[in-house]
């Protein structure tokens, strides 16, 4: 590209080269129109950006990138944007074998078509990284199958990104939040919940939850007003969640606090490695090999879900409300399997 000559020619060759690299960098971020690309290059290079006949200089740059470096740049006529399909000789990223294995691991853990927003972003990242690899390494990567993969909440439903943004906004602004929610008990129609939102958490199975205090539910259901509820984010109906004008007081209404006590049979407890799933957990290992666990909880529904993993190896003694929940569950299970 550079031609021997005076300092001015060298400088101009270098500038052209730099401009073309910037162009590739801009296209690596995503498809762009010619106006976007010119604006971006001009913002970066200032007066040394594109000359007056910018459109034809841009076309000239594309031709050079295709001809000299084997880049494949396509034009989408309908949307009027350019798309970088292949970097050709500019695929400058190469990776040692362990990193190629890591790339295969990420591919296996976040396969195409897994709908969660975070997976979609990881796919985008992976696609960009793979694009930077030389063709032979790309082919090697496509053939490789990772033997290990991460199990992160594959069964979770899709969380609407607008719902997540609105929820976070309400939490940050400390304001009331209203949304339609389809709970386990709502057979067909969702109900409107007005809540005081306090945080978002994710559980091992992949579900995301909004931690909120219930203020009002329309039409009324079994929810106790001022109870702390973990709302499944994927069950909040997209499109009508709203941050309300009412600012919340600095003190959260106190949810009822329960002293939890349960025992685990010797088969589960004998190794003295019982997991702590609740705040203020105190574990006492007993002489017969069993264990007694005490803790403090506010959410009995969540507590039941967690303790159910022990099956019939766990017996809840306190609080009475949780024992009643387990009795209902046991009755239901007995009807199913009798």
């Amino acid at each position, binding site marked *: 590209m550079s031609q021997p000559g005076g300092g001015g020619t060298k400088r101009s060759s270098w500038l052209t080269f730099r401009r073309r690299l910037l162009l590739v960098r801009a296209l690596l971020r995503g498809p762009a129109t010619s106006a976007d690309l010119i604006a971006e290059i001009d913002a970066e290079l200032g007066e040394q950006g594109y000359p007056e006949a910018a459109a034809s200089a841009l076309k000239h740059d594309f031709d050079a990138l295709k001809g000299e470096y084997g880049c494949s740049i396509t034009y989408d006529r309908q949307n009027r944007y350019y798309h970088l399909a292949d970097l050709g000789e500019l695929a400058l990223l190469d990776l040692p074998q362990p990193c190629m294995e890591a790339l295969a691991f990420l591919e296996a853990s976040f396969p195409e078509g897994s709908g969660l927003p975070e997976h979609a972003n990881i796919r985008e990242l992976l696609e960009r990284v793979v694009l930077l690899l030389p063709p032979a390494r790309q082919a090697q990567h496509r053939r490789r199958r990772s033997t290990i993969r991460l199990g992160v909440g594959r069964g979770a439903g899709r969380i609407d990104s607008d719902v997540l943004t609105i929820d976070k906004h309400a*939490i940050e602004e400390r304001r009331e939040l209203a949304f339609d929610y389809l709970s386990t008990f709502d057979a067909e129609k969702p109900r409107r919940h007005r809540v005081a939102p306090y945080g978002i958490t*994710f559980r091992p199975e992949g579900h*995301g939850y909004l931690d909120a205090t219930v203020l009002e539910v329309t039409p009324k259901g079994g929810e106790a007003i001022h109870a702390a509820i973990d709302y499944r984010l994927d069950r909040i109906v997209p499109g009508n969640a709203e941050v309300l004008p009412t600012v919340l007081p600095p003190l959260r209404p106190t*949810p009822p606090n329960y002293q939890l006590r349960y025992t685990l049979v010797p088969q589960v407890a004998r190794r003295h490695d019982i*997991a702590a799933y609740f705040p203020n957990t105190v574990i006492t290992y007993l002489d017969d090999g069993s264990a007694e666990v005490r803790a403090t909880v506010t959410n009995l529904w969540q507590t039941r879900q967690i303790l159910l993993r022990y099956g019939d190896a766990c017996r809840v003694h306190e609080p009475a409300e949780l024992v009643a929940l387990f009795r209902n569950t046991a009755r239901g299970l007995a009807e199913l399997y009798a």
Partner: protein
Amino acid sequence: MTLDDHTETRRQRLVEGWLPLAQDANQQYGWQLDGPALEVLIITAAPALAEAQSTFAARAVFWQVYHQQAKDER
């Protein structure tokens, strides 16, 4: 309700919400943290957890905070 009660309520809900995932990471990565250590992990990680958009991101936060704590203790 005093300010201390309020702080305790917040701590309780925070720990209660995040403990299942923290415990899962604890078991999966073999950290062998007990209940009180997991609570410290959650409280230390709380500001970053508030930004997490997914289980994956939250796990990464726990991972980072755990290793930072281990480094600080050395």
